[in-house]
């Protein structure tokens, strides 16, 4: 669809009055550009400002300062009904007094489309979401997943420039959530609308997004593709928030234009890469980046050993540092028990320094 538009946030600040009457900053000077047709996720723990940001784009909140652009238009002064956005709510927010057809047609009627046009659009969208035949049902006669899809249809049928999602899957059970992820992604790709998706669920963010924005305490920690976020976290927060990470102190021994030598656990490691922005001299190593190996470079004592099915999880003490190692396919390997010595290596390509 050619209507899709970019969204630009410029130096957005949002202050709130908290419970004790204290001023608190929900969103602290963020700037962001969402490309036309892109699927971008705002990811972060609760209270990080992601929902507030989304609601400012929709127009339910106004920024204390800063500017919001949809396409070329500054929309700060527009009420939600005047903005070309459509939102899928966490609680679905289907109109309980209207049936499915009327729910989806609600916005189209306000656009003053003819009956015939409305009918065609509603029929088409029901087809797209796979709910044809349920037009006459009341929202509470549908399952959670079906309600979810109606909410999505009601938004998409408006053919907005921007689609907004406020944790739309958090009320579904685990299996349905996984299914709906791919459904939403499929439908979004099909209609090609710029989409901004808010969630605190990292697997949702990773599996659906073109880019992920990790937020914490009102600021943006990192913007990147899911791959970048996972493998090259910009900050300790991102490393810790996304997946499981060992964040270990190291010493940067020597830096060249195309290599970095570090010292970790008193051993030298040569990394064939230059890291920009090293601030804290810490390495981020995912548990699965360790390789349990009798000839490995490092040695530790197993503190806890847990069989998790697809992998064996070890908590290992190396000197005074505790690390987590995931050893996949334990059935094919030797399993270490508590108190045993364990040797392991590190896949050097996977080491990231922050």
């Amino acid at each position, binding site marked *: 669809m050619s209507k899709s538009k970019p969204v630009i946030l410029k130096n957005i600040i949002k*202050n709130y009055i908290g419970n004790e009457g204290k001023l608190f900053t929900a969103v602290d000077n963020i700037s962001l550009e969402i490309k036309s047709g892109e699927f971008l996720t705002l990811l972060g723990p609760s209270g990080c400002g992601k929902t507030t940001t989304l609601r400012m784009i929709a127009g*339910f909140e106004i920024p204390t300062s800063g500017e919001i652009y949809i396409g070329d238009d500054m929309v700060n002064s527009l*009420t939600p*009904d005047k903005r070309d956005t*459509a939102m899928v709510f966490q609680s679905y927010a289907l109109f309980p007094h209207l049936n499915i057809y009327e729910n989806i047609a609600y916005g189209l009627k*306000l656009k003053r489309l003819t009956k015939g046009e409305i009918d065609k659009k509603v029929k088409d969208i029901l087809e797209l979401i796979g709910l044809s035949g349920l037009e006459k049902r009341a929202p509470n006669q549908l399952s959670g997943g079906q309600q979810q899809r109606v909410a999505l249809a*009601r938004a998409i049928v408006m053919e907005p420039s921007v689609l907004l999602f406020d944790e739309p899957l958090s009320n579904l059970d685990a299996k349905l959530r996984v299914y709906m992820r791919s459904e939403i992604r499929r439908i979004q790709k099909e209609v090609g609308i710029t989409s901004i998706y808010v969630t605190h669920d990292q697997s949702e963010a990773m599996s659906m997004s073109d880019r992920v924005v990790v937020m914490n305490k009102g600021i943006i920690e990192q913007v990147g593709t899911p791959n970048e976020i996972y493998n090259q976290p910009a900050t300790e927060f991102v490393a810790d928030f996304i997946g499981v990470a060992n964040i270990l102190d190291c010493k940067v021994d020597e830096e060249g234009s195309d290599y970095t030598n570090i010292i970790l656990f008193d051993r030298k490691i040569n990394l064939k890469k230059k890291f920009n922005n090293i601030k804290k001299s810490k390495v981020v190593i995912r548990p699965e980046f360790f390789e349990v190996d009798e000839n490995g470079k490092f040695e530790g004592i197993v503190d806890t050993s847990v069989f998790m099915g697809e992998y064996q999880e070890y908590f290992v003490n190396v000197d005074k540092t505790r690390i987590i190692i995931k050893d996949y396919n334990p059935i094919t390997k030797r399993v270490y028990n508590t108190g045993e010595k364990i040797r392991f290596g590190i896949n050097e390509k996977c080491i990231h320094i922050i």
Partner: protein
Amino acid sequence: MKDRFRNSVYEMKKILRDPILTATIVLTMISLVLFILWPIYDVLKESFLENDGSFTLRYLIGAIKDAENQKVLINTLMLGTVVGILSTIVGFIFAYADAFIKFKFKGLFNIIAILPIISPPFALSMSFIMLFGQRGFITYKLLGLQNANIYGFAGLVLVQTLTFFPIAYLVLVGLLKQIDPSFEEAARNLGASRKDVFKTIVFPLVRPGIANAFLLVFIQSVADFGNGMVIGGNFTTLAVKTYLQAMGNYDIKGGTALATVLLTISIVMFVLQKYWVGNKSYVTVTGKPSRERNLIEDKVIKIPIQTICFLISAFIILLYILIPYGSVVNLWGIDYGFTLKHYSYVTSLGMKPILDTTYLSLISMPITGLLGMIIAFLIVRKRFIGRGAVEFVSMLSMAIPGTVIGMGYVLAYNTKPLVLTGTATIIVIAFVFRSMPVGIRSGVASLQQIDPAIEEAAQDLGANSYKVFTSVTIPLIKSAFFSGLVYSFVRSMTAVSAVIFLISAKYNLLTTSIMSQVDVGRYGIAAAYSTILIVIVVVVVGVMKLLLSKIGINTSELNS
């Protein structure tokens, strides 16, 4: 504090983007100022200002120093306290029976709770006089007493308690039913006897509710004008005295000074109730109980409570039955022969107040309903500067004694810029602003149950504020809306204390006509009027409920 103010000023930008919303807020505020605050201000102004405009405490001090007024003040406070305590006790017994005890006649409780609402506020006084007065059925006919005197403190206490205890009952039964039975089971499990459970669990949990019930009844008792007029006798209360001073003695200054005192008592109690006790009630009790309580069947507890409730209920119902009965006997106390002459009098000479009252009540009904829902919507959903004030003022009108507001209307709308005295408009306005708080309250309660995202979704899909309100908000809270309509009609039909100041030769009302008939001892005609009033109310409410249930709307909220 400064940050806070600056931020809320900033948040107003969000409202100001929306012209419809802004206009609605402004108009609502203007109407509240015009029809609630301004009349009160005029009462205060009259009592604190000399005719030349200089400030004085002369009238207030004069009113307070006056020995008779002091007695009136003491009477009023004593009456409020005694009625408050008695009503709370009776209300608690009924509520406990309803929530905790296996009981056959619970249907009675609903009737008992609704009767005072659908009848004139002084209906029980009339019945009491018919039973216990000088020519009373019991005192004169059965006991042969020559000079029975029901007028005064004892009569008022009894009548007010029977009229107002349903308020306490409704407050307390709500709380008691909300207590999760697992609390009591946990206590029993830890070794508490049933008595211990009552003393250590149930009672402490409803203690704020008890204070709340007491204060609500107190406010009603102090503001009660009708019963005081009819059965008070020489025991004068502040509400009655205020009216007599202003309208009987034409001492407006003295009347407003008394009104100021009355208003002060009511507002203090209201603030106490709303901000001190009102909030506490919800802290201890969490949400809906997980499952139903096992009701008590133990005879030692059941039989006495059941007996008390049954006797009181039966007595009240008897009192109400006396009204239609009294309307078809020749001369109460002397000749109990059947007659329809009172009705023929009413239909030939006195139809006008009946028609006027019904007509004006019907006009004010949709206005009240809509305005109530708009205010509820603004209070719950919108964060604008002055929201707290709008909420306070609109609920305040529930606590302001009708006598005070009635006097304020006379003072405020007698002179330019807004001359309304003697018109139907002013009566409609009085009806609207007197009955609105209940609609607001049920609107607020309904809205709080509804996910704000539903309205946001509508706005997000392109609906402006007006469209959101009409196409989503109102349909979602239609039960509260229609309950508000029904209540408004009922309340207007039975109103007396405020409108008694506003009636004129052109517009006389049903309740005031009844009162003047009682005043001259024509109980038959008064009873006929009262019966007609009750019939109109029951018929209109019944028809509305029937129509509404046809389109699938439940208005049972009216009862609570």
